[in-house]
């Protein structure tokens, strides 16, 4: 399988690409519009410098060359494109020739990352819900003219998992640059995948482009479906036709949107209403200097803070960086706390409830991890305290007290463990003979007896002391 990706991302600018209208999702239809983005006769586009800056940040984060560039007109008639042409970069994009390294080290080349304007949004009423056959269509031009960057990868991706990892990594990079909010559900990022199949070592096969995938899950499913479709087609003696295909999430299959022969002739030519774009070296230097660390760098920084890191912990680090939770981990590290515990709690408990992060202060998190590491809280108790903090905030110590998580004294624990050993001599013997798994058996019993208040670590320590 060979996959190349085209990713459209909306830029987080205050205003649109060529006018002063607000770039804001979710406003009343046709309220963020003006003569320019409505394409009224006589209006002219003026390039938004903030959008150029964000596009440069994306290019720099993807190791692209930034070069003098131009804008073209892509001509086609469609009601949601107010001028009936789209202003887009064409043969001379602002960013070209970069790469993106996946967390597993695979390098995916980036051919270009160019600027263009978004279209409006059509709603088709009646009939099939698509343009053809609808009773009437309504157009909302709020999105028309919103700045986009289209990032085009080389045909370097070899599996749907890799495509998903690429999309996720790119999303992290776009969020880190401040260029995008990464909100897939709001259409902030949209994926097109060019999929072809071949026998290993043979030249590339004919590709099909799957358009407008808007979640990581549909991206992966659509690629798998499409590759299989092509393989079956070829094995049955057929040939793949170059075409654009639509992914139906509900039915889980792709279908023909248009074949190459029907492809529109966009009659590209230089946009005469705009001048060439050539960011000065000084401007580029300023943008580069202000570029924050990218996810790959942040992952390796975080990994370096965990001694003898395990593969599971590496996976947890990916999640922490993905969700931008490293401020919690770093605070723990800075306070001299247990980074491994912090990473694990971030990647699990915090990740499970990111919407509620506003309730959790960094200090409360640091205190909770310190209590767990110091044995004041068992892992189970620590998770419960974090859950409570995420739901309603507060102070971890008072929450622990309110839940009755007072520390069981060492004596109590010691006599309890001695008692358990006496009751289960066979298991104790096997544990003593080296079957470490049985420690879990004893921890479980201790938990049961104390209604979860026992600290598993302390139980194991007591067991080991009695070996």
């Amino acid at each position, binding site marked *: 399988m060979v996959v190349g990706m085209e990713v459209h991302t909306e830029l987080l600018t205050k205003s649109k690409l060529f006018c002063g209208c607000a770039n804001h999702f979710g406003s009343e239809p046709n309220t963020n519009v003006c*003569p320019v983005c*409505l*394409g*009224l*006769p*006589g*209006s*002219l*586009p*003026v*390039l938004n410098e903030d959008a150029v800056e964000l596009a440069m940040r994306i290019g720099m984060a993807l190791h692209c060359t930034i070069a003098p560039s131009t804008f073209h*007109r892509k*001509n086609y*008639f469609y*009601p949601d494109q*107010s*001028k*009936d*042409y789209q202003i887009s970069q064409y043969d001379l994009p602002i960013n070209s020739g970069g790469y993106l390294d996946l967390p597993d080290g695979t390098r995916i080349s980036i051919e270009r990352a160019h600027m263009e304007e978004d279209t409006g949004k059509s709603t088709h009423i009646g009939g099939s819900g698509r*343009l*053809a*056959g*609808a009773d009437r*269509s309504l*157009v909302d031009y709020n999105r028309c003219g919103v700045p986009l960057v289209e990032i085009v990868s080389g045909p370097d991706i070899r599996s749907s998992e890799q495509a998903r990892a690429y999309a996720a990594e790119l999303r992290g990079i776009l969020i880190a640059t401040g260029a995008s909010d990464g909100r897939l559900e709001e259409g902030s990022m949209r994926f097109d995948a060019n999929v072809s199949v071949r026998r290993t070592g043979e030249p590339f096969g004919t590709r099909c482009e799957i358009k407008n995938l808007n979640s990581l899950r549909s991206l992966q499913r659509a690629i798998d479906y499409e590759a299989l479709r092509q393989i079956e087609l070829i094995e049955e003696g057929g040939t793949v036709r170059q075409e654009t295909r639509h992914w139906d999430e509900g039915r889980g299959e792709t279908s023909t949107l248009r074949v190459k022969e029907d492809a529109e*002739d966009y*009659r*590209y*030519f230089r946009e*005469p*209403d*705009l*001048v060439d774009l050539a960011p000065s070296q000084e401007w580029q230097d300023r943008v580069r200097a202000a570029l924050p660390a990218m996810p790959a760098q942040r992952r390796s920084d975080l990994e370096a803070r965990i001694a003898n890191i395990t593969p599971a912990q590496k996976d947890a680090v990916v999640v922490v960086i993905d969700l931008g939770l490293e401020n919690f981990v770093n605070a723990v590290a800075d306070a001299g706390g247990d980074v491994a515990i912090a990473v694990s709690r971030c990647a699990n408990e915090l990740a499970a409830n990111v919407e509620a992060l506003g309730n959790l202060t960094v200090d409360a998190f640091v205190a909770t991890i310190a209590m767990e590491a110091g044995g004041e809280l068992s892992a189970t108790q620590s998770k419960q305290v974090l859950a409570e903090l995420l739901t309603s905030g507060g102070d971890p110590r008072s929450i622990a007290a309110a839940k009755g998580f007072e520390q069981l004294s060492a004596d109590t624990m010691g006599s309890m463990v001695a008692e358990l050993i006496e009751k289960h001599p066979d298991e104790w013997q096997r544990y003593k003979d080296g079957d470490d798994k049985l420690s879990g058996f004893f921890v479980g019993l201790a938990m049961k007896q104390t209604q979860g208040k026992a600290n598993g670590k302390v139980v194991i320590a007591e067991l080991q002391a009695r070996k």
Partner: protein
Amino acid sequence: MKSAVEIAKDVQSGATTASAELAKAYDAIRARNEELNVFLHLDVEGAEKIAADVDARVARGENVGPLAGVPIAIKDNLCQIGIPTTCSSKILDGWKPPYNATVIDRLVAAGAVPVGKTNLDEFAMGSSTENSAFGPTRNPLDPSRVPGGSSGGSAAAVAADMTPLSLGSDTGGSIRQPAALCGLVGMKPTYGLVSRYGLIAFASSLDQIGPFSKTVLDSAVLLETIAGYDPMDSTSLNEPAPSLSAHVNDGVAGKRIGLVKELYEGADESVVASVMAACEALKAAGATIVELSIPELQLGLSAYYLIAPAEASSNLARFDGVRFGLRVDADDVTAMMEATRTAGFGAEVKRRIMLGTYALSAGYFDAYYGQALKVRTLLINAFKKAYEQADLLIGATTPSVAFKFGEKTDNPMTMYLNDVFTIPTNLAGDPALSVPFGTGEENLPIGIQLLGPGRSEAQLFAAARALESADGR
């Protein structure tokens, strides 16, 4: 009739009022508009308010501006808030812009009073106003003849003494050619000198707004008023507006003026004679005449008729019935767009949209549009070389005096050839003007074209003024 400069002086001094000057303008318009078809729309109420405001400011002792109380006619491809703006096309039926073109704001700020919108060839495509959906404008000097185009209405407004000033737009000669045919001064400024914001585009890389007037001084004052950087137009020159009226009497002593063979050869005898007489007059005023040949200019017409239609095919796509103007209902949106454009555009506009669409199409782009761009570069370089040998260039504006209605409508090529002398400057982005000098058949005026390198407007006005005064004006 008084010049714009004289009216502004008298309004400012209290010798007359803006309201009185406006009333005179409307009297003149009402007297001949039915016969000549100059104005498509008059904004009487709005103009009276602006004039009253000018008078109030004068009464308060304010310095209103260089065009205080001067009535001005506006070509109907310039947007003015709340005023029907049609481009002389049925497709804009009923549309009223919600915003002003930058030039309108600048005019009003300088005290000028826009009186109404003038007729043009549909979307500025034509050389006679015969392509207007609302009927042709007649030449006030001889109503059996065309006023030229596409800014024919704006030229006729000044020639008929309705207003001392008007604004036109020039894509391939649409100001200079009607100025020549109506005996006026008409200037196409350096590309980017005047903001295009609010000018409904024909060919964006060629269009420029410019002045019509009876005198060179009025032309300079009007251009000064509308020129200068506009952040709303990315192609606007980011530099201070030049001082022009102060240099009108600078003269041409010591200037080298290039007489360009390709800019008069093939013109009527009377036209060629006027060009030669103009050279003599400039020589007498102290200039040196250098005879030049720029063969590349002959390629201008062909390149223009690929580049301008190509841009127009894209610029005019937005007239699709979805958001504004005419909508002809049909079963689905594509059919609606087709029906609207079929009913809304006239024959010449359709011809150019098809020509431009073809020139940009895959498989033809390199041979047509791409090739035309190369020719454009050749032309730019040829002009540059010429300006090493001469400060300004001189030639004819048009091959003949004003022609009769219907004379050139049968074959589009004969109409296109009327712009053969004016088109090259637009492709180069340089300024040029037409100034009346001499007469031809039926005593009709002949226009002399003066061309200069980018930003040479002051020198062009000085040379035009030298011809004007040699003519005893």
